[in-house]
């Protein structure tokens, strides 16, 4: 009796709530722990990024218009969907060399992290906003507002937990984002897009691309309709850091670098990850009869 031939998965990108292939038609090979080819990942181009920015811009306003309660619900919903697909992600992590325990820990922490940020959705405004006791006869308050679109380099290691940890604080604050998945381990990111797609996250709020960091770095940091660039690499080269900062000068993109060593650690989650992607808006109004 012959073995059943498995159906292999085509790994695509996630842009505007759809799963297109890269417009470039290019791919790169992804390997498992034994150096066998696992799949072909899309090698995204500048055009893919630009499409993603258009989708992200379209989505951002509406996403920010959702109530904080609703955004929290949706983040929680992502966690629910991930919980029910745990086996798939554990399996995927194992193929790239995780032990079963390690894979479980990464997936469980990812779920918990989503819930952590879901809970912040309707709280950080209270903690980080203020009513300002001005000396004149005005009512004056300051509230955090999303920056807009954030380009993100997901951490190279921790293909699932790293991705979730950089995405959640950005979107919970009403931003939309374009995430370049781990270059070496992009497959969990694409599978995670399927989770997002079934979690009521509006299309375009999270866009996930795969490809070469070096190729896309310039485009991610110079795009004029992107408001911030976020990366976490603790051991990035000095030249690359400099290039990111210089490129960001073009439209005063905010560059946020949080060099995180251990994504499992408690301090790799914090409300300050949310406020890093918020602008403070101050509103004045006269008080009187």
């Amino acid at each position: 009796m012959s073995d059943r031939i498995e159906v292999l998965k085509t790994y695509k990108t996630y842009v505007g709530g759809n799963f297109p292939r890269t417009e470039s038609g290019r791919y790169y090979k992804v390997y498992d722990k034994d150096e066998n080819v696992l799949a072909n990942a899309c090698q995204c181009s500048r055009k893919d990024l630009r499409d993603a920015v258009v989708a992200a811009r379209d989505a951002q306003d509406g996403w920010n218009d959702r109530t904080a309660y609703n955004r929290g619900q949706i983040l929680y919903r992502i966690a629910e969907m991930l919980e029910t697909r745990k086996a798939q992600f554990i399996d995927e992590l194992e193929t790239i060399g995780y032990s079963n325990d390690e894979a479980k820990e990464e997936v469980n922490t990812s779920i918990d992290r989503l819930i952590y940020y879901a809970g912040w959705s309707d709280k950080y405004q209270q903690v980080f906003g203020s009513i300002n006791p001005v000396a004149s006869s005005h009512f004056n308050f300051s509230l955090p507002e999303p920056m807009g679109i954030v380009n993100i380099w997901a951490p190279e290691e921790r293909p699932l937990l790293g991705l979730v940890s950089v995405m959640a604080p950005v979107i919970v604050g009403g931003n939309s984002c374009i995430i370049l998945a781990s270059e070496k381990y992009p497959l969990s990111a694409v599978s995670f897009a399927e989770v997002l797609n079934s979690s009521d996250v509006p299309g375009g709020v999270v866009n996930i691309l795969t490809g070469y960091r070096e190729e896309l770095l310039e485009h991610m940091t110079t795009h004029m309709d992107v408001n911030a660039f976020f990366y976490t690499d603790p051991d990035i080269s000095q030249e690359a850091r400099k290039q990111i900062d210089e490129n960001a000068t073009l439209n005063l993109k905010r560059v946020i670098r949080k060099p995180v060593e251990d994504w499992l650690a408690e301090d790799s989650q914090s409300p300050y990850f949310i406020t890093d992607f918020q602008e403070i808006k101050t509103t004045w109004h006269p008080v009187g009869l």
Partner: protein
Amino acid sequence: MSEDQQTADPIEEKPFKPSSPSSKLNFDGFWEYDDAPQGTDHVEVKEQYNLFIGGEFVAPAKGRYFDSINPATEEVLCSFAEATQQDIDKAVEAARNAFENEWSELEAKERGKYIFRLARLIQERGREFAILESLDGGKPIRESRDVDIPLAAAHFFYYAGWADKLEYAFPGKKAEPLGVAGQIIPWNFPLLMLAWKIAPALATGNTVVLKPAETTSLTALKFAELCRDAGLPDGVVNIVTGAGQTGSTIVNHKGIDKIAFTGSTKVGKIIKESLAGTDKKYTLELGGKGPNIIFEDAPIDQAVEGIINAIFFNQGHVCCAGSRLFVQEGIADEVVQKLRDRMETLIVGDPLDKNTDIGAINSEQQYNKINEYLELGVNEGADMYQSSCQIPEEGYFCRPTLFTKVAQSHRIVQEEIFGPVLTLQTFRTAKEGIEKANNTPYGLAGGVWTDKGSKIFKVGSKIRNGVVWSNTYNQFDPTSPFGGFKESGEGREGGLHGLYPYVKLV
């Protein structure tokens, strides 16, 4: 756009004075203001000022000085030292020493007391500072006396109280100072900008090297005297004078941990670029092209007053000036008429006269820049209206100016002019108004005028600006965070949010 505005044409027929039927301000030439000059005899201006480093006034290493001009008379007021690399090295070293050996050792509440002293000293010598500010910068004495100086004192008073309460500002974190802050401030609000920069830096335990603008360094050096009077430990505050080159030396200095800059977007970008790849923290408060949106249901007389205040305050040398006016179509004619009437009553002239509304343009360079934009606006096809007031023959003065028939693409609409120049456009729906308002790379501040509270909140939340003034404009307070979205800068000054850029959280 052009069609919309054709209805405004009949206005051209009317004389440019307060004569419209609805105008209550019909002065009609009968009212003449007597001169009301502010006395200056108790104020001392030395011929020459040195650098303030390590608690001493010291001559610059290269012995170079430059003149400071009184923009209202074009006469030399005094001269300032030009700080070069050696001077900056010395200032940074003094600041570092003071940081490590004194300031960071000091108990927070004691640190606070020094800052309280500075606040009080500014209050005590408020009139003197106001006069100097007007002499040096050309701003009306009314504004320097009633706005600049009291606010500067208030900033020190506010941040003094934060010094021993930082644990309440950053939930879940401990705040530590960064070290030495290099601070570069602009010429539009010299002492106020100094206060915005120095007060939070000291409150959080940093020491500073501050460079005022080369055209307006006088009050900063007077402030240096106050630091001595307050007994502030030597080197905690250092004031170095000079132009762009001196600023760039500060930005690129390896011994500095944080840069705080207020100025143009162009220079801000250069600074951001020179800090690329370093661990220096920075805040940038940059340019703006503030939208001022007037809805049909707005209280029109108050709105007109607000428009005037938004653009003509401090000769329009305000980064958050409401330089782009958006008026809902139905009231456009009325607003234009009332605006012109009100512009006619503005007095342009001697900054030291208490009646003056609009003083001198800060420098010849800025005066030329404004005039270039006026010419450009006319060449782009806009209609220019200037009030018919008299202006002095000497000095750099510019009449309040209104451009109508402008388009989004006009450079006078897109670019920051930094002078008393207003552009007016109309809109029909709130959505259109918001879209037009957001259509520049800037995002500093803007105004919304309507009687409807819900509209204020909706429109205010959709404007991509760091500050929204609703039914008011150009309000400032030390407790209130200020700063820009997009290309108007990064970071906030004022309020508890203004502490964040001066600390590392652990």
